[in-house]
């Protein structure tokens, strides 16, 4: 195993050198506690302020104090769902989300259900889009929150966020979006998109792991998730992770600065990959929306093959990808996303997500496809499912 190709950038990315350089002084030169009032603390606070400004600019927030740092996307999602629900429980206890959300949203909703909240999980069409008609039908007088992800992590479909947000506001409902996969992939403008709360994370955009943020529009009430000190204006306790925050700020700035060029590059890599894939391997299906999707993520279902064994064969040759489904404990747990999109269980099971990054080259794609083609051939040769009898 000599060559290594990383095609799992939707899971996480490396930290870019520009970001790392921004972080390094914060470990040992500017190491004060950002909440201390002495000079060491003020220096650290200045770093945090700059990062907050950069992130606010990246999503066009009206004010930097609408950005609250969290430990990552999962905490931001949990805080948004639980915090907005509890702060508005006197108005109603109904929440609308979609069937294809990240587990951070789905599990936060499940926790609220145990506390007496009612959740409607909107279905999606075969391309992964939430239908506005379904949303309108689900809205009730006691609906207090709608949370729909901006971009799906498994198939890359982009939701009609602005329309959904407008629909929410026309009905006096708050709107949150999990934009973890969207940051850096499409232009986010919380003012134009009328977003009340938005979750983002650094490690998907060449920043460090363990840092994220929740945007909460000024004037929107939210209850605390993490109680503690007076950090983040008393809304989120815990000493600020200054190096990670510095890195996040820089990563967000770069993500927006280089958005167009990165997307052009990813588009060309994606098209190159798809063309060669279709040329080399038959009996495949590309999942997600045909064009309303981000460039970096491609979800492919391989007929007659189980995904984990394909992933492992690729891994043994140095190619890293991911599967959504997992066959465990004798009961298939198909990806909830693919299931919601109406993809058959056997096809869902043979689904691999390839996600490209800004350093993915055509040579990487060539190698990955070479390995993929032989792995698919090998597994199909021993598959009890035949082309004739496959469904």
């Amino acid at each position: 195993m000599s060559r290594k190709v990383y095609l799992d950038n939707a899971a996480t990315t490396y930290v870019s050198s520009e970001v790392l350089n921004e972080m390094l002084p914060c470990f040992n030169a500017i190491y004060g506690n950002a909440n201390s009032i002495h000079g060491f603390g003020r220096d650290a606070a200045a770093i945090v302020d700059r990062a907050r400004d950069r992130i606010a600019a990246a999503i066009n927030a009206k004010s930097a104090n609408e950005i609250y740092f969290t430990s990552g996307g999962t905490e931001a999602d949990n805080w948004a769902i639980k915090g907005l629900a509890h702060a508005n429980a006197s108005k109603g206890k109904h929440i609308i989300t979609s069937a294809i959300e990240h587990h951070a949203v789905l599990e936060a909703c499940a926790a609220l259900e145990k506390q007496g909240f009612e959740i409607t999980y909107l279905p999606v069409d075969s391309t992964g889009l939430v239908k506005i008609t379904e949303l309108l039908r689900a809205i009730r007088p006691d609906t207090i929150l709608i949370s729909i992800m901006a971009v799906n992590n498994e198939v890359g479909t982009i939701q009609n966020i602005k329309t959904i947000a407008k629909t929410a506001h026309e009905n006096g409902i708050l709107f949150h979006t999990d934009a973890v996969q969207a940051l850096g992939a499409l232009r986010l403008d919380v003012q134009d998109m009328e977003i009340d709360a938005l979750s983002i994370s650094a490690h998907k955009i060449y920043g460090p792991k363990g840092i994220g943020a929740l945007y909460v529009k000024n004037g929107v009430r939210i209850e605390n998730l993490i109680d503690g000190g007076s950090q983040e204006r008393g809304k989120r306790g815990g000493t600020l992770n200054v190096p990670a925050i510095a890195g996040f700020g820089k990563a967000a700035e770069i993500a927006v600065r280089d958005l167009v060029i990165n997307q052009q590059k990813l588009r060309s890599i994606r098209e190159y990959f798809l063309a060669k894939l279709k040329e080399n391997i038959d009996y495949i299906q590309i999942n997600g929306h045909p064009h309303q999707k981000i460039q970096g993520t491609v979800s492919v279902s391989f007929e007659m093959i189980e995904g984990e064994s394909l992933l492992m064969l690729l891994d043994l040759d140095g190619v890293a990808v991911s599967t959504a489904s997992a066959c465990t404990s004798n009961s298939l747990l198909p990806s909830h996303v693919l299931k919601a999109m109406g993809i058959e269980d056997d096809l869902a099971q043979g689904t691999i997500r390839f996600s490209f990054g800004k350093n993915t080259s055509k040579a990487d794609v060539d190698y990955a496809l070479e390995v993929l083609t032989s792995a698919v051939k090998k597994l199909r040769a021993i598959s009890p499912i035949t082309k004739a009898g496959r469904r």
Partner: protein
Amino acid sequence: MYNKKVLSIFQNPSNAGGMKGANGTGKVGEVGCGDIMKFYLLIEDEIIKEARFKVFGCCAAIASADVVCDLVKDMPVSNALSLTSSDIMEVLQDLPSNKVYCTSLAIDGIKDAIDDYHKKLEKLQKKEQSE
């Protein structure tokens, strides 16, 4: 997640593929459940001469199926029927806990194939008696 032993068997299974002239075949699992295993046996005088498999499933399923084929080769049918999943585990050394069921599936599959052989044999004997 998987140890080297499992991965090496998975990568180069020695008994993968179908078999022409098999006189006992067994199929276990369902697409909806995650794994399908199909076994092909060639049995002569109650001795398993040849065993092969096809799998739609994970690494553990492929490795378990390959190991069970190795185990039953040249084995009297009666001995093969008393194999358990721990015999496969002994060869694989270790599997993630949520993958251990693959070894049971492989045992069930072999038993299903032997069952098929016996049924065919019975049919044949009845036919011979009636003639």
